[in-house]
């Protein structure tokens, strides 16, 4: 064992392998920082290069890439509130408020140390797990997977926000959104609104961007001159961030464990790791009311977990030849290309290759975090720039990111519609994390309930691991209920919880009700295999809406059920959210005419001129700069952008397609 480990270390430390590793790390950092792209897209790019490469170097390059995408994805999450990959959605919750306080560097520093620690911990776990994990993984059947989903739901249930009923309603709304499109067990299209786009379920990337990025962008546009409220960046953030991590090392360790376990086990998948870690942090620490307002622990938890999960996800990939995640699936393809067949044979005969991967994960995390630390002071300055100067570019980037989901116009339209939903959820106090969690777990809930019941009936409860998981779930719910804190916000007739003028809230609830009824009546048309889950999700939504409706009608005093952020410090001179929504609609319509690239360029130019009040030539340079950026990316990453009517008539040269 130690012999193979040493041999692998000497293989890694050759110049050629190290260069390949660094090349992989740099590529991984770039695709991680670009929202919408992650390890899967990055590895797909490397695959043709890997072909014919020296195996050790190829291995180091591929692992180097996968290991660090969740390090650099922190930049957009923390600095701009745009989730860089689905692995860092939870980081936005506390990372971005820290940035708004001017503590961007501190938040980044926490994130990078946590990522580094989590990544190395994941490698450490992998080095043991390859010897004993196989029987454990093979014990995780449908019943266990079902209980894992329930446990996850109970852990994140604490994120329901101030009002429990609205929080549960938001979670149900997530489940409902998850029922749109092809049903997982029958392939039948449900509630597609007649759109071909919904042949598949809504992409998670699009839902994540809509929930977090758009509302923040619009909120900032309305209220602030720069992302950092003070317009400055705290100079001592670095050391502070490291100290923040050090005083939370125990939380970081726990979340790393959670990350690597969830990464290794079947059933949940990588995209909920950050939420579960975040939920765990909220559940098990004191002063939980500070979460969501820029609490360092809210950065430590998801960032430790999301890097640790890569080491964990390698366990089933290498031991069973069954990929633990999307990027692992393509890594598996890469391994076959260089002549390595994962599975028992690899553990018996190619142990040095396994160790090479483990060392590569550790080395890549060090190199990746190092590069991020080095670059961060420069990149963090973006938070001190006048916001109207960067907002149009960020809008361009989130639409670019959404389009990477399925490369379909539908991605852009879905982003717009869901963004409108998210903007009003934020305004009326409906928890967006709760919706996202419901959405992420929706398909897992649907298929694991069906599979467990079909196969075992109630007898799955006799399985020992299931019983342990039931116990953990009870503890988890107990923690949530026992330590539940009520909203401290004062209830006054003038404040956001006022009972006066509820018309906007009525419109919002009415829209949700109509959507729920649509899904419900659609679900009745199908046999149980297709239609049962939408019916259940719709009924749970109605059950949670009922008390809200009762309160809306009957209660004549301020209440936690009522919330309208517009009643709280509404900006005096700023424009309304509806104005910006209208602007996005116009932009998309225009992009439908001239194509995405030209549409965005026009938007950026006009926005810079009109709202940032820069000279015409500078505004034009901004628009052209973005065209160039998109052009270079499309060339390097072999992407294509949505075309408009114009492209159907004439064929335009690069980069205007």
């Amino acid at each position, binding site marked *: 064992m130690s012999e193979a480990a040493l041999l692998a270390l000497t293989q890694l430390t050759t110049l050629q392998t190290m260069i390949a590793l660094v090349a992989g790390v740099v590529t991984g950092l770039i695709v991680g920082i670009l929202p919408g792209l992650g390890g*899967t*897209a990055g*590895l*797909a790019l490397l*695959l*043709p290069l890997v*072909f*014919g490469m020296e195996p050790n170097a190829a291995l180091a390059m591929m692992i180097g890439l996968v290991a660090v995408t969740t390090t650099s994805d922190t930049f957009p999450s923390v600095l701009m509130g745009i989730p860089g990959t689905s692995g860092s959605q939870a980081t936005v919750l506390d990372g971005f408020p820290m940035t708004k306080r001017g503590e961007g560097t501190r938040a980044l520093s926490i994130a990078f140390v946590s990522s580094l620690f989590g990544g190395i911990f994941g490698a450490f776990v992998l080095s043991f797990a390859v010897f004993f994990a196989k029987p454990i993984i*093979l*014990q*995780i*059947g*449908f019943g266990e997977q079902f209980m894992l989903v329930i446990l996850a739901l109970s852990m994140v249930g604490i994120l329901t926000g101030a009002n429990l009923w609205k929080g549960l309603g938001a979670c149900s709304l997530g489940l409902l959104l998850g029922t749109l499109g*092809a*049903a*997982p*067990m*029958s*392939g*039948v*299209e449900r509630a597609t609104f007649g759109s*071909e*786009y919904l*042949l*598949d379920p809504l992409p998670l990337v699009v839902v994540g961007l809509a929930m977090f990025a758009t509302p923040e962008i619009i909120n900032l546009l309305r209220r602030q001159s720069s992302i950092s409220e003070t317009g400055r960046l705290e100079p001592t953030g670095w050391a502070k961030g490291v100290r923040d991590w050090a005083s939370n090392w125990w939380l970081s360790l726990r979340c790393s464990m959670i990350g690597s376990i969830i990464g290794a086990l*079947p059933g949940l998948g990588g995209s909920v790791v950050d939420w579960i870690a975040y939920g765990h942090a909220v559940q098990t620490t004191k002063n939980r009311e500070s979460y969501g307002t820029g609490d360092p622990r809210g950065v430590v938890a998801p960032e430790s977990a999301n890097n640790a999960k890569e080491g964990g996800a390698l366990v*089933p990939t290498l031991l*069973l*030849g*069954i*990929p633990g995640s*999307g*990027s692992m*699936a*393509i890594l598996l*393809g890469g391994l*076959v*290309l260089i*002549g390595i*067949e994962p*599975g028992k044979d690899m553990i018996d005969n190619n142990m040095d290759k396994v160790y090479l991967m483990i060392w590569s994960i550790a080395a890549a995390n060090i190199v990746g975090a190092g590069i991020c630390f080095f670059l961060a002071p420069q990149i963090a300055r973006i938070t001190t720039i006048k916001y109207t100067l960067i907002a149009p570019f960020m809008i361009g980037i989130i639409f670019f990111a959404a389009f990477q989901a*399925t*490369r*379909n116009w539908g991605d852009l339209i879905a982003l717009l519609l869901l963004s409108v939903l998210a903007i009003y959820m934020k305004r009326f106090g409906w928890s967006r994390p709760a919706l996202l969690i419901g959405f992420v777990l929706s398909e897992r809930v*649907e*298929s694991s309930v*069906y*599979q467990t019941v*079909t*196969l075992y009936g109630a007898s799955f409860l006799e399985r020992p691991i299931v019983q342990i998981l039931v116990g953990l779930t009870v503890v988890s719910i107990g923690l949530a209920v026992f330590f539940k804190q009520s909203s401290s916000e004062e209830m006054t007739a003038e404040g956001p919880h006022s009972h006066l003028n509820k018309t906007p809230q009525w419109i919002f609830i009415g829209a949700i009700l109509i959507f729920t009824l649509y899904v419900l009546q659609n679900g009745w048309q199908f*046999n149980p*295999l297709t239609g049962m889950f939408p019916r259940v999700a719709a009924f749970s939504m109605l059950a949670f809406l009922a008390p809200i409706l009762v309160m809306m009608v009957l209660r004549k005093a301020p209440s936690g059920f009522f919330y309208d952020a517009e009643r709280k410090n509404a900006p005096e001179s700023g424009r309304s959210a509806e104005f910006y929504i209208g602007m996005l609609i116009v932009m998309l319509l225009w992009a439908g005419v001239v194509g995405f690239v030209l549409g965005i360029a026009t938007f950026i130019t006009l926005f810079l001129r009109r709202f940032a009040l820069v000279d015409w030539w500078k505004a034009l340079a901004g628009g052209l700069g973005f065209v160039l950026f998109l052009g270079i990316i499309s060339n390097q990453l*072999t992407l*294509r952008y949505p075309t408009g009517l114009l492209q159907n008539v004439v064929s335009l040269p690069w980069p205007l397609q």
Partner: protein
Amino acid sequence: MFNGLKKLVLGAAAAVAVAMPGVAQAEEFTLEGKTVTWIVGFREGGGTDRLTRVLQTKLGEHLPGNPKVIVLNKPGGGSVTASNDFHANAPADGTMLIMASTSGLLPVLLGSKNARYDPNEWVAITGFARGASLYAISDEIGLSGTDMMADYEALKSANIRFGTETPLSAELLDFVSMELLGGVEPRYLFGLSSKDAEAAFQRAEMNMNTDNTRSYLKDYGEDPKVNPVWSYGVIDESGNLVRDPDLPNIPTFPEFYEAVKGEAPSGPGYEAQKAFMNAKVMLSKSVMLPKGTPKHIADVYIEAMKKVTADPEVAAALPREIGSMPLNFGEDTQKALALGTAMEPEVRAWVATFLKERFDTSLD
């Protein structure tokens, strides 16, 4: 360095062109300075994507003018979305091609209203056949592997658990095959992608599974507990179904049927089985140019694909696609396509009834 290499390859290509008078007409067609876009209707990382990316590395070298070849992933609806788009909009000038797979042919075969494309109108370049077999944990089902009659009795009385994605997936081949035997009633568990089904089989929660033959051999070839029930065979050049070359000792499904029923399979159910077999095995993956592509361009691509697939490096990287099963090109692929995407009305009616009765699923 790459420039030098490019010149060398160009020179070699020119030499080949001069030596082979048959391609003289093709020589006029060039893709120099162009970008060839290869559409994959799935996300990065799947089997179709991996095959395409390996072929991509060499395709440019063998096309006239050495164009840049890029792979563009357009996931959606099991490649239906990308196929619709390809059918309606792809330019027929040799700058765009698609990697089709079984899951793109099935909706056409079953007459789904979502599939607004007809692969028969496309111009076929290459088809990759890939053997498939149905295998099981022998002890659990009571299979001996030596006496087909006894195995049939075992199948009828066993509690078979088979994991699969949906009733309308490529596993229809397995559903229909077992249905034809009569008396075999597996419990199907839906919502499992092939990798989930594979994992559940490894955990022994499922006791029957299907996979391509090469993967089966890699995973379980050495495992005495897991054995094939039958293979789906391969269609040879004269159009006969013969045994899978990778499983020469395993009966094909029709052999198994004949042994246990005393007569060769026939009727609309068997016609459906054959159509699914064609779509799944003979056209596991196929490379196509858009409808209306001129013949001289198609010929250029056929020549190039022949060279690419003959490259030893490519073959080594594609152990599941190249090796045992015959590759087919041009006309042959087109013929297999016609068989794998067409169904007589009474055959489709049989399938519709079967799906309705067995799975409460309709074809739309």
